[in-house]
């Protein structure tokens, strides 16, 4: 996590389902292919929803990193 370069970060904490997923989708649209995006979410639904969307959209799921009261979701845009 420490040496992972994040090109864009979106703080969606406090936003309810499906807010964080929407933010992630918009974020992926806005970055260039090859860039990484990090979304912070406090919505427990994101733990399943975000990886499911990334898989469906055939992007690269870098990882989910739990913090106190929220999780950092990192995705790399691959197409």
């Amino acid at each position: 996590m420490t040496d992972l370069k994040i090109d864009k970060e979106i703080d969606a904490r406090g936003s309810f389902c499906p807010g964080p997923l929407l933010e992630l989708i918009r974020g992926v649209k806005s970055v260039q292919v090859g860039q990484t995006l990090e979304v912070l979410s406090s919505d427990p639904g994101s733990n399943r929803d975000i990886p499911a969307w990334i898989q469906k959209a055939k992007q690269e799921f870098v990882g989910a990193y739990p913090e106190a009261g929220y999780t950092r979701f990192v995705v790399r845009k691959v197409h």
Partner: protein
Amino acid sequence: MEENRTSKMSIVLFSGTVDKLMAVSTLATGAAAMGQEVDVFLTFWGLQAFRKDQIYTNQKFSSEFAEYAEAAAQAMQAKGVKHWLETLKAAQEIGDVHVRACSMTMELFGWKLEDFDPIVEDITGVATFVESARTGEITLFI
């Protein structure tokens, strides 16, 4: 005879209470996110909820949970929950979402398409909706 089913969620929105409007907008967003086409057919109170003069003043809740209506409205305001129409517009932004009005309800109440938020794109009959739902995978009545 068997046609290929399309990846589509077809929703009849009959209710006009805020709790159910939120459910529909959230489901539509999830479906749009996962690449499904979404068809929303607005009838009766579901259509009324899209009237420009009611969208932001409507605070109706499902009658069987009426005693929670005020607490729910307060919680939604305190926690900054997005308005259902905003969520539905976000669904449209990320996917293929169509919202259409039931012609029978329009005629019954004497409503015009311009009475509604522009997200309501057209007026249609039930046969068109049923035909569209027939080829889809998920159909909901809310």
